[in-house]
C-alpha cells in the first residue's frame, strides 16, 4: 500500500462555491492559512446555477423578513466592494391582472418594515422603459435589485484568497475523516490519481447541496432538503432590469439580464439525489407558459439553453414545494454532536455568501484563538483581469479596443480572442493544474453563444494544439466531454431556430467528424466527478453563466 502524501493547514474548507471561496478569502485576510478542496470546479453546484440575481431582499419581505434584511444589507455591501462583478440594473417588481391584490397592496409597507425602499412606478413609464412588460401589468415597484456574475465573483474571490496564501485543490474529493475523540485530525482526499492526507486544526463544510453527505462522513448528520430549480437562457436580452413577479414566490417569476441574454426561471421540484439533475422539456414548457404572463415575448423568443441546479435548504421536507422553507443560511458548530473542530455553513443565498463566510470564519477564528476581525465588508475585491472573461459583452469591447495584431478570434458568437484562452490556460497551468476545455468554458464565453460550442470548441482545441498544450488524442476527448456537458442544457429548449442550430452541430460533429463512433471508447476513460461519500456530483457545465 502506498502511504498517502501528507500536507497540513489551519483550516480545511470543503466546497468551492460562492460560500467556500468567500470563506477562503475571509480567512486569508485574517492571516489564517487554509486549503479549499473542491470535487469539481469553482461554482459547480448551485453557485453557478442560478439567476445571477443580487437580491434587494424584497422577494422575501412577506415570508422571511430576516432573509430579506440580510439580502438587502449584503447586496449593498457587494455593490461597494465588488462592483466589477455587478451590473447595477435596478429591479422592477411587476404584478399582472389576476395576481393577488392584497399582496400587492401590502408590499410597500412590508418592504418599509424590512428597511427596503420600494418606489411605485407609473405603469406607462415602466412600460416605456421595459417595453417587454405585459399590457396586462397592473402594478410596478422599483427595487435596488442587480445582476451579478457569480463566476466572476467566485473566481476573483478565490484568486484574491490565493494571492494571500490560500491554496485551492480542484477535482479533489473528500474520501473520509480521521477522527480522534471530539476532533477530526485529518481528511483523506482523492486528487486525480492519488490520495492525500490533509491535517487541519479546523474543518469547514461549505459543500452546498453536498453538505449533508460530507457531514455524514464526519459523523455529524444534518437534515437538508433538496429542490431542483430549472432556468432558461434567451438568445437576446429582453429587459434592462431585474424583473420579479409581484406575488408570493412561485415558479418562473424572475427574469434577469445576464449581459447579452436574459435568464428566466425557476421551477422548484423536490429531488432525492443530487445526480442526474438536468432540465426537462416539461420544465421548459412550464417556465415559458408561466413567465409569459409577465413578459409575453417569452412565448416566442429564441432560447439557447437551460440549466438546473439544486437548492440546498436546511430543514425537513414536507413544506409546500420548497418555497416555504427559509432561504436563510445555517451555521452548525456540531459541538452537540461531539465534534469541536468541524463546522457546516449551508443554505442561504448567493447574495448572502459574504455574510455566511463571515459567520463561519468568526466561529473558526474563535476556536483557533485568532482575534483579527472580518474585513470583507470593507475590503474591495481586487480586479483580476484573468477572471474577467466570463463577463458577457466584455470580450467584444476588449477586442475592439485592444486586440493585438497577432491575436485571433476563436469564438465568433461571443468574440473570445485567443489571448483570453491563453491567459486562462496559462493561469491554471501555473497553479499546477491540467486545464481542460471545460475549465476554459467555465472561465470564458467559449461555448456560451448561439452555436453552443459547435464551432468555437474545435477552434479552441486546434489553438491549444498549435500552442503545444494538447497532445495525442486529447483534443477529441475534450471536445466530446465539453459537448456532453453542453448538451444537457440544450435538450430542453431545442425547437425553432435553436433546433436548426443543434442540427447543424450534429451535421458537423457526427456527419463529418463521426465523433459518435468514438463515444463509447472515450467516455469509459477517466470517470469524473464521483462525489463526496460516493454520491455522483452534478458535473460542471457553467450552466448558470449565460
Amino acid at each position, binding site marked *: 500500500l502506498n502511504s498517502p502524501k501528507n500536507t497540513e493547514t489551519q483550516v480545511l474548507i470543503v466546497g468551492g462555491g460562492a460560500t467556500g471561496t468567500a470563506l477562503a478569502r475571509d480567512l486569508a485576510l485574517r492571516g489564517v492559512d487554509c486549503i479549499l478542496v473542491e470535487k469539481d470546479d469553482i461554482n459547480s453546484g448551485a453557485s453557478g446555477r442560478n439567476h445571477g440575481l443580487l437580491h434587494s431582499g424584497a422577494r422575501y419581505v412577506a415570508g422571511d423578513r430576516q432573509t430579506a434584511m440580510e439580502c438587502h444589507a449584503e447586496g449593498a455591501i457587494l455593490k461597494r466592494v465588488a462592483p466589477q462583478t455587478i451590473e447595477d440594473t435596478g429591479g422592477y417588481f411587476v404584478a399582472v391582472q389576476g395576481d393577488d391584490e392584497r399582496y400587492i397592496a401590502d408590499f410597500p409597507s412590508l418592504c418599509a418594515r424590512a428597511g427596503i425602499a420600494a418606489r411605485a412606478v407609473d405603469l406607462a413609464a415602466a412600460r416605456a422603459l421595459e417595453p417587454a412588460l405585459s399590457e396586462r401589468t397592473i402594478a410596478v415597484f422599483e427595487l435596488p435589485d442587480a445582476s451579478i456574475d457569480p463566476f466572476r465573483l467566485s473566481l476573483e474571490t478565490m484568486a484574491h484568497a490565493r494571492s494571500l496564501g490560500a491554496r485551492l485543490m480542484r477535482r479533489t474529493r473528500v474520501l473520509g475523516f480521521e477522527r480522534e475523540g471530539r476532533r477530526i485530525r485529518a481528511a483523506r482526499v482523492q486528487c486525480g490519481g492519488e490520495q492525500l492526507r490533509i491535517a487541519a486544526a479546523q474543518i469547514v463544510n461549505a459543500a452546498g447541496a453536498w453538505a449533508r453527505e460530507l457531514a455524514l462522513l464526519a459523523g455529524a448528520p444534518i437534515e437538508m432538503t433538496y429542490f431542483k430549480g430549472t432556468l432558461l437562457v434567451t438568445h437576446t436580452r429582453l429587459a434592462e432590469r431585474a424583473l420579479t413577479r409581484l406575488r408570493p414566490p412561485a415558479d418562473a417569476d424572475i427574469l434577469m439580464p445576464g449581459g447579452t441574454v436574459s435568464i428566466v426561471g425557476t421551477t422548484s421540484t423536490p429531488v432525492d439525489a443530487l445526480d442526474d439533475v438536468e432540465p426537462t422539456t416539461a420544465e421548459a414548457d412550464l417556465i415559458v407558459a408561466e413567465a409569459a404572463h409577465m413578459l409575453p415575448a417569452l412565448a416566442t423568443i429564441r432560447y439557447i439553453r437551460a440549466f438546473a441546479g439544486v437548492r440546498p435548504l436546511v430543514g425537513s421536507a414536507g413544506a409546500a414545494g420548497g418555497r416555504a422553507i427559509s432561504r436563510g443560511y445555517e451555521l452548525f458548530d456540531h459541538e452537540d454532536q461531539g465534534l469541536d473542530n468541524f463546522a457546516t455553513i449551508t443554505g442561504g443565498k448567493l447574495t448572502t455568501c459574504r455574510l455566511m463566510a463571515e459567520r463561519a470564519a468568526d466561529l473558526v477564528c474563535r476556536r483557533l484563538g485568532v482575534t483579527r476581525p472580518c474585513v470583507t465588508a470593507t475590503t474591495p475585491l481586487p480586479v483580476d483581469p484573468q477572471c474577467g472573461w466570463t463577463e458577457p459583452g466584455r470580450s467584444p469591447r476588449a477586442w475592439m479596443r485592444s486586440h493585438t495584431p497577432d491575436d485571433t478570434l476563436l469564438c465568433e458568437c461571443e468574440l473570445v480572442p485567443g489571448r483570453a484562452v491563453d491567459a486562462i490556460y496559462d493561469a491554471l497551468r501555473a497553479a499546477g493544474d491540467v486545464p481542460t476545455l471545460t475549465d476554459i468554458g467555465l472561465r470564458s464565453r467559449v461555448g456560451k453563444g448561439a452555436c453552443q460550442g459547435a464551432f468555437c470548441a474545435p477552434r479552441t482545441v486546434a489553438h491549444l494544439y498549435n500552442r503545444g498544450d494538447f497532445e495525442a488524442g486529447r483534443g477529441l476527448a475534450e471536445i466530446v466531454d465539453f459537448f456532453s456537458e453542453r448538451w444537457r442544457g440544450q435538450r430542453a429548449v431545442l425547437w*425553432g431556430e435553436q433546433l436548426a442550430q443543434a442540427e447543424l452541430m450534429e451535421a458537423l460533429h457526427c456527419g463529418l467528424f463521426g465523433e*459518435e*463512433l468514438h463515444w463509447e471508447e472515450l467516455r469509459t476513460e477517466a470517470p469524473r466527478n464521483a462525489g463526496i461519500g460516493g454520491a455522483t456530483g452534478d458535473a460542471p457545465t457553467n450552466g448558470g453563466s449565460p
Partner: protein
Amino acid sequence: LIRVRQDSCDVAVIGAGMAGMAAALFAAQRGLTCIQVGNSGGLLFASGLLDLLGVHPVAEGRLWQSPFAALAALAREEPLHPLARVDALSIRSAFESFVAALGGAGLRYAPLGESNRTVLTSIGTIKTTYGVPKSMIAGADLLDARPPCLLLDFRGLREFSARQIAAALSERWPGLRQGQIEFPGCEALPELYSAHLARALESRQTRARTIALVKPLLGDARAVGFPAVLGLARSGEVHAAFEAGLGVPVFEIPTMPTSVPGLRLLRALEAVMSVRGVRRYHQAGVRALAFDADGGSATLDLERTPGARDGERVRARAVVLATGRFTGRGLSADRAGVRESILGLPVQQPDSRAAWHQRDFLDPSGHAINRAGLCVDDAWRPLKADGTPAWPRLHAVGSILAQQDWMRSKCGSGLAIATAWAAIDQVGRELRGKGAG
C-alpha cells in the same frame, strides 16, 4: 398593385441543396424543363465528400467497406429507409451522372468504385465516405498502409491544426509528421480565411512561393496533406501544380464549414444548372403552393423576400420538394411539434418533445427527431394522414424524408442523389405518360 410575372415548366424543384440540385440536374438531363426555387447557401456547409452509406445499423456504429453491401443489409433490415427503396443500379447511375456533371463543371472526382474510402478529418478522426474529389483522393485509405506522410497548415488558419491531426493519429501512424508555414503574402495577418487562400493560390507566383516553403520540409514524405484551400475555380490546375512542384501526391483535408470544397461544389452546381438551362429563382421563397383541382398542375407563388408584394408565379406540371430539414427550413418545429413548412404536410414524429433527443448528444442510437420527416409512397409522393398521396404530382426527396438518420448513417449525399434520381425517374414516366414534356 401586385406585379406577377408568370413562368412555366415541367418540374418545379423547391430547394437548392444537394437534393434539389440533383433533382434539377436529373430532370434537365431527361429533357424536362425545370425551374428551381430556393437558396443554395446550404451547400456551403458541404465538405465535398459524397457519402453513400457508411454506417449501418446506426445503433451499432458498424462501418462498411462496401456501400453496396451496406445498402443490401439496409434493404433487408430497414425496408422503409428511403435509400432502401432505390435499387442499386439506379444509385450507381445517379452517382455516375452527378459526378460526371460536376466534372464537366471543373470539379473532378476520383473514379467511383465498389468501396467506401476513408479520409482524414480536420480534428484527426477518420471519415468513411464514397465519392472523393480528385484533390483529396491521394489521402484516401492512407491509414491502411501508413506511409511516411507530411501534413501542413498555415499559421492563422484557425480551425485547422496539422499538429492536432498528427497528434491524434500518432500512435497508429508514427510516420505522420506535421509542419506549419506562413502563407506567402499574409505574414502580417493574424487570421486567414480559407476562401481567400484558395483564391490566392490560383496565382502562379503565390503557388510557387508556397511550394518553395514546403519543399525543405518534405523529407521522406510520400504524400503531403493540406487544408482544403488549393484553388477555387481552378482547383484542378492548382492541385496538379502542387503535385508537380513537390514531386509527391498531394491531398486536401476538408476544413470546418463553411469550407472551400463547399464553395467549389456550390459554384460547380450553379454552373451545371446554367448549362442545363435550369431557370433558378435562387433568392426566392415559396409564398404559396397550390395544385389544380384535378391534381394535374401546380401554381407556385414566389416571393423575393418574405412579405414582398411583387413576385413571380410559376406553373409546373410536377413539383419536387427538396427543402431539407430544420437547417434547410423544410421542417419547422415549435414546442408542440414538427410541421412541414410549405404545405403543412403530415410529419411522422415522436409523440412528444421529450422524446426528440437522447440524454447524451453522442448516444450511439441517435436522436429520434432525426428520423422524423415525410412518409412517401413508392412514387415518392408525401402521404396524408390516411395513407394516400397528398397530391398526384407532388414528390419529396432528400433529408426531409422520414425513417432515416443521414448524419449517423453517413448517407447524406447518397440520400439526396439517389432519391432525387428515383423521384425524377417517376416524374419523367408520369409526364411522358401524359403525352407532353
